[in-house]
């Protein structure tokens, strides 16, 4: 039975990171214009057609979907004018604005988010974010998006405890903040509208109506895992 989205607090990580899946294409991480957004980073996470994309312009999560990217345009199929677009079923949508909050000594400050690129390692890809504080300090945040399934993350008992099903799809967003000063705290706005379950170590100011909340990263909590589970909307091999 699918429960309404409820926060399940985990006091510590209870899963082992599974090996990376077979990717959807080569190259599986690529830059392009996508849905008229010019600075996108696209991940073909799995050969089962699960994708996610980030907007490097706004330093935000764009969406997660199952399907494909229609690669059309002069560099792809010689047509002049069209650009790549998302094709398929959308599972999750992000926010274009107000994604980041930075607190110094408990007070909110206006930080400038800048895209730092991405790092390919161990079969995964990690996005690199910079948050430039008004005092010039540069806080680096990393995010590694990944696709998985409950049976790759948990035991059968855990699957039952967490009210998951083996057919569920999982978007696993893993965050780290690098060398965060003690007086700095970072919060990232995340949404979970469309999920059947989510597992997260720490989320603040959750709004169950809007189905969003804030992940908190600090020197005391440099990492945070957010696992979002979806019921497949179409057959997934």
């Amino acid at each position, binding site marked *: 039975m699918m429960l309404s989205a409820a926060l399940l607090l985990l006091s510590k990580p209870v899963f082992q990171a599974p090996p990376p899946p077979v990717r959807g294409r*080569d*190259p*599986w*991480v*690529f*830059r*392009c*214009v996508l849905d*008229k*957004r*010019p*600075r996108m980073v696209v991940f073909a996470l799995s050969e089962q057609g699960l994708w996610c994309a980030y907007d*490097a*312009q706004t330093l935000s999560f764009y969406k997660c979907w199952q399907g494909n990217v229609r*690669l*059309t*345009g*002069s*560099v*792809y*199929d*010689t*047509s*002049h*004018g*069209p*650009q790549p677009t998302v094709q398929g079923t959308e599972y999750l949508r992000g926010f274009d604005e107000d994604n980041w909050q930075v607190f110094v000594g408990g007070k909110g400050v206006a930080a400038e988010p*800048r*895209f*730092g*690129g*991405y*790092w*390919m*390692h161990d079969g995964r890809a990690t996005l*690199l974010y910079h948050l430039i504080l008004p005092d010039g300090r540069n806080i680096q945040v990393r995010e590694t998006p990944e696709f998985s399934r409950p049976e790759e993350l948990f035991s059968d008992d855990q699957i039952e405890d967490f009210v998951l099903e083996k057919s569920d799809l999982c978007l696993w967003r893993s965050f780290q903040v690098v060398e965060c000063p003690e007086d700095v705290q970072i919060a990232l706005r995340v949404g979970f509208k469309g999920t059947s379950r989510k597992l997260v170590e720490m989320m603040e100011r959750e709004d169950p109506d809007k189905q969003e909340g804030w992940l908190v990263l600090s020197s005391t909590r440099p990492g945070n895992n957010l696992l979002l589970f979806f019921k497949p909307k179409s057959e997934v091999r």
Partner: protein
Amino acid sequence: MLALMLLWLAQEAPRQEGVSMRFYFLGEPIEELCDLVAGQTPNISRIEPQLDFDTDQARGIAGLEYTFLAVVDGWIEIPAPGKWSFRLTSDDGSKLELDGRTLIEHDGLHGSTAKVAERELSAGSHPFLLRHFQCYGGWSLRLEWKAPGAERYELIPSSALRCPAGEVRVTAPGTKRILKPLSKLRPGSGRPLESVHPGYALFPARPADFCPKVGGLAFRENGDLLVSTWDPEGAVWALSGVSSGDPAKITARRIASGLAEPLGLCVVGKRVFVLQKQELTELIDIDGDGITDTYSCLCSDWNVGPNFHEFAFGLVHKDNWLYANLAIAIDPGGKSTRPQVPGRGEAIRISLENGRFETVAQGLRTPNGIGTGPEGELFLTDNQGDWLPASKLMRLEPGAFYGSRAVKLEEAAKLPVTPPVLWLPQNEIGNSPSAPALIPAGHGPYSGQLCHGDVTYGGVQRDFLEVIEGVWQGCVIPWIQGLEAGVNRLVFGPDGALYVGGIGSSGNWGQSGKANCGLQRLVWQNQPVFDLLAVRAHSDGLELEFTHAIGDGEGWEPENYAVAQWHYEPTEQYGGPKLDEQALRVRRVSVSADRRKVALQLEGLKEGHVVHVRIPGALTAQTTPGGSAQRLVAAEAWYTLNRLPKERPLFVRERPRSEALNRLSAAEREQGFELLFDGASTRGWRPFRGQGPVQGWSVVDGALARTGPGGDIITEAQYGDFELRLEWKVASGGNSGVFFRVDENHDAVWRTGAEMQVLDNDAHPDGRNPATSAGANYALHSPPVDATQPVGLWNRARLVVRGSHVEHWLNEEKLLEYELWSEEWKALVGQSKFASMPAYGLNKTGHIALQDHGDPVAFRNISIRKL
């Protein structure tokens, strides 16, 4: 190849209903289909739903002129297999090819008439090409079909016609040049070059199974060549062994991928930077395995939108900055998009130290190329479009505005426009210029000049630059063609060779007839090649400099040179015509004492104009002692005269009185040549079928000239196998000929002797027929080109006869060769006027004859050697 092989299947380009039609205005009447000089852009380019044109129905196309060539192509979708019939109606001529084979030939001048043809066809797409010309009067063009078993023809519906979708349909104004049966235009003189420069050897620079669409080229310190690819993979490859010239010894390894249209690469020390559409990225290999681990964003601060044309082009490093250019957005038809994202059309630079971004200059459109030139200055190119009447090469000046009003329309109208260093007139010497680069040492006379590639015109052009009173200007000269693809990027390697990266795509983005990918290497062979090296501006004209001394006595006549000038005015129209175009009179010519320079005194030079100099005459040079004379590789240049020098007159030199006329050189004497004309008398010649001195021929200014009626003259001696050399000159409309193996047993030299025609092609009616034009084996074998000098200038002819083998040479060009008494020769004779002359061409020895055709003609420097 060590790289991952991309299994990215090329997607077929999308298609839409209708046919693609391109109209080329000719400005002169033609009587049959002809070929266009390569590399020209149509005047009108559009998609039509069907082929159904009739002037009576007034389905006219705006701006269509009275003489044009139309090229229609696309696919016909055959719904079911069977024998299909086609009916082509046209006024005037047309020709239809289907599946690459001629289906209907309906050429020539005629009214609206139809021709039909049938063909067995399978169901599916069948490519077609329809060429048509119109020459005044009524116009019609209609293509119909009849299905198997049907009774009537019907117009092929648009649902059965397809053409490429979404192409940018580029046009350019002005009359287009055609290749006439006897064209005076030749590669490097009125037509694009066709081959690799003879001073260079061409090698592959890639493995056989790797053909990149090159977006960027840069060498690493270890000699590897990095290549970024403008393709779905968006990759960077490291190629080893490129200097070997052997594809089997070159390896390619993919070191990065997933980049968005990487159109710039730069290596600074050990650091590698790639320019994407939206970002300047450093490729960092953390673990030392050669593969990029981190794609580090150094800068993404410029504005960019989703438009397909918002390219970022680059890269060049200077003083710890990386320089790049940003193209504007355009609509698929080619017009600038409104509004633009702010900051487009700019030359920018990014600090290597901290990624800080700065605007350097503005007002660009499609600036696909930036590079370092003379004196360490940076130069960039821009492509024709709105506010850009022709493509151009500019020097990067901080704060400059180069003219495109796409971004700031109203404000831009008030900004002073920085003129280009060089205009690159559309389709004459440019179309889509790309990266410029300085030619380093080790390239003979070209070292120190600039060069640049071109994606659509193709090849690499050479740019000679000079600074006149603080103003940069100069000329562009044809240099290299014959490459495998249009040139997008080029770089000089550590081995000194020139590496050229090719590219191609749909629409106007590629060189016709070439591949859409390529990577090659050009190595200077250090062999003497006769070329136009530079053109310099003076207060009273232009000075031409050559790589070698031109032939003794050559180049003094103004008729050797054709000079014209015009200017451009940017408007919001796409491209722009030549304005105020006029021919300039060459008032006086001086050839320097070393014969390496020619000074052309010109009337009416104007600042702010492009001056085109072409050498239609056959200037030659003997580049090695005793070697054969060479013609110029490039015989034209386009000089952008931004500033007319005030105090820089041309040198003046009087023509020497004594030139080496009617004398044999030491080499010729060694080869066994003897003079047939001593320059002072008619000794050695007599009237045909006569005795005594010749009549009607006398010595004039060192030449044996026909000065009055007297008949043909022949040599006293007879010759079997020989090489004859002479020079001839006719008056306007003049006709004469040189005959060999003539006997006096018949009443005319032409009853036994074959003739090498002597003629003014332009003014004499025989010049319209190749078989009777200058240099032809009269009435039998035609020369492929008009190799004559402008009338009034001397033409150098050679006739080589050895047994049955005959060669005609004119002005260092071998025009034709044939075999006497062969089946082919017999067949030609049998169809000619000589069929009734049983002795024609059969002698194995005989006299040499010069024809009196009633027109003034002169011969000099006549020598012969027996073979």
